Structure formats: C-alpha cells, structure tokens
C-alpha cells in the first residue's frame, strides 16, 4: 500500500483537485486523476517533505469553524480601523509569543491562518527559541491577541498530535 501511495492524503487531495478542475466525475476523468495523483505521489517522495499525521477530523471541523468566525470578525475590525484612521491613529505594535509546535506543517498552517485573519501579520519565527514575532494592527488588549494565538496553537497541536 505504502509503495503505491506514499502520501495517501496528498494523492486523495490531488484527485479531488483534478475532479474539481474538470468539473466531472466521469470514469475517464477519475482514471486520469488517479494515475496523475499516484505519479505525483512518487514525485513528492523524491522531494522528501516532512510527514505529519493529522487526526481527529471532528475536532478539525470545530477548529476551522472558530477560525472562520475569527476571519469574519477581524475583517470587520480591520475595516473599521482603516475607515477611522484619519481621526484615530491605529494603536499597532509588535508582539512575541513562545510556540510549542514542532511540526513544520502545523507551523505552515498557523502562518496561513494568521495571514488570512487581517490584523495579525506573521513576521519572524525563531526556530531554535521557538518564538514568533508578529505585528498587530489594533492592539486594544495585548492579552487577547496572545490568547488567540495560543488558542490556534492548542487547536493545531490537537490536530497534529
């Protein structure tokens, strides 16, 4: 099984993307997609990326729901800051937080989440110290931001174990 599908999740994902792009579930498309996803799985083997084993799909769903809520909320917050910037200068600043994530893929996902939520920008991650420097647009309350990052970290840790 492992020789055919070195990265099962990647292969399934590629097949799904192929079906979406072709917008069909005809037999021919599925066969072509399967061939491509298996072949690309082998190619990826050469690149030797870090393996991680995401688990607990239900928890993942709940986590993504909370992230989507955060994205909506921070979109509105950042819009308000931009519209009011003439009257009130944004109270922005840098924050440092110590992370306890080992998994590289989890870190990449955290970067995606923090960039997708406007208002936080990932700046620098120190691999040895495991500390992350990020910039916050509207620092009303430092602790709230630190807690948010810690919450993401806990969620990702649960997912990647």
């Amino acid at each position, binding site marked *: 099984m492992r020789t055919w599908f070195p990265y099962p999740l990647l292969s399934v994902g590629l097949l799904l*993307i192929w079906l*979406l*792009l072709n*917008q069909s579930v005809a037999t021919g498309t599925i066969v072509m997609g399967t061939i491509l996803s298996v072949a690309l799985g082998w190619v990826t083997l050469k690149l030797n990326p870090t393996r991680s084993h995401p688990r607990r799909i239900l928890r993942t769903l709940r986590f993504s729901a909370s992230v989507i809520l955060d*994205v*909506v909320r921070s*979109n509105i917050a*950042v*819009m308000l800051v*931009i*519209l009011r*910037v*003439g009257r009130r*200068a*944004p109270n*922005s600043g*840098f924050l*440092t937080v110590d992370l306890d994530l080992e998994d590289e893929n989890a870190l*990449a996902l955290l*970067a*995606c989440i*923090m*960039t*997708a*939520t*406007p*208002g*936080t*920008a*990932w*700046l*620098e991650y*120190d691999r*040895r*110290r495991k*500390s992350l*420097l990020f*910039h916050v*647009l509207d620092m009303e309350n430092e602790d709230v931001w630190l807690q948010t990052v810690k919450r993401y970290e806990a969620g990702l840790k649960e997912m990647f174990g």
Partner: protein
Amino acid sequence: MSHLTDLPTWAAIVVCGLVLLGSAIALIGSLGLLRLPDFYTRLHAPTLATSGGVILICTASIVCFAVLQSRWVFHEVLIIVFVIMTTPVTLMLLGQAALYRDRVEERRGVPLKQKPLPEPADE
C-alpha cells in the same frame, strides 16, 4: 455571459449583494494601503482583499453559475484555497525585508534581533 439575464431575481439579489460586499472589502483594503501610517500597518490592508474579498466574490460566482447551469459548481473553492495558501509567502518576505532594513538603520520602535542560540552539536 449573455445568459446572465436568465438569472432569477432572488439569485440576482444574492449574487449582487455578495459581489458588492466583496469588492467593497477589497476597496477598503486598498484604501488602507493609502491611509495607514507605516509599513507594518500597511501590511495588514491587502489581507482584507485576500480573505474577505476573495471569499465573498468566489461565493457569488459559485451561486451565480450553480443557479444558471442548475448543477453544483465548486471549482471556485480552489481559488480561495490557493490564494489563502500562497499569500503568507509574500507577506512574510515583505515583513522580513522591512524588519531587516529597520534593524540595519536602527530605527526606533522595532524589536531587536535576539541573539541566536548556539548551534546544536548534531547539525
């Protein structure tokens, strides 16, 4: 595109709302680039367009073509996924470049680089 008039009224209202809201968010994001005072705060403005803007406009596209062709259309989801996956790369590059410049110029209010820990022996 000439079939857009076939869109039923309720769908047209939904699609219009989503497109207008999405483009308004993108516009505010671009305004932010213009109005925010320094580089690091400006870094936040375009993420409005890449999160809220892209999601709303792609949702509008999904609804529009799903109703027009009366079948499920999902491939716009790929646009959202790829945009969200790739923006951190650019933003991190820009942020790190700015941080590096400000540290070299010893500008005030920029966190200093921490002294690197010694290399572990096995590396």
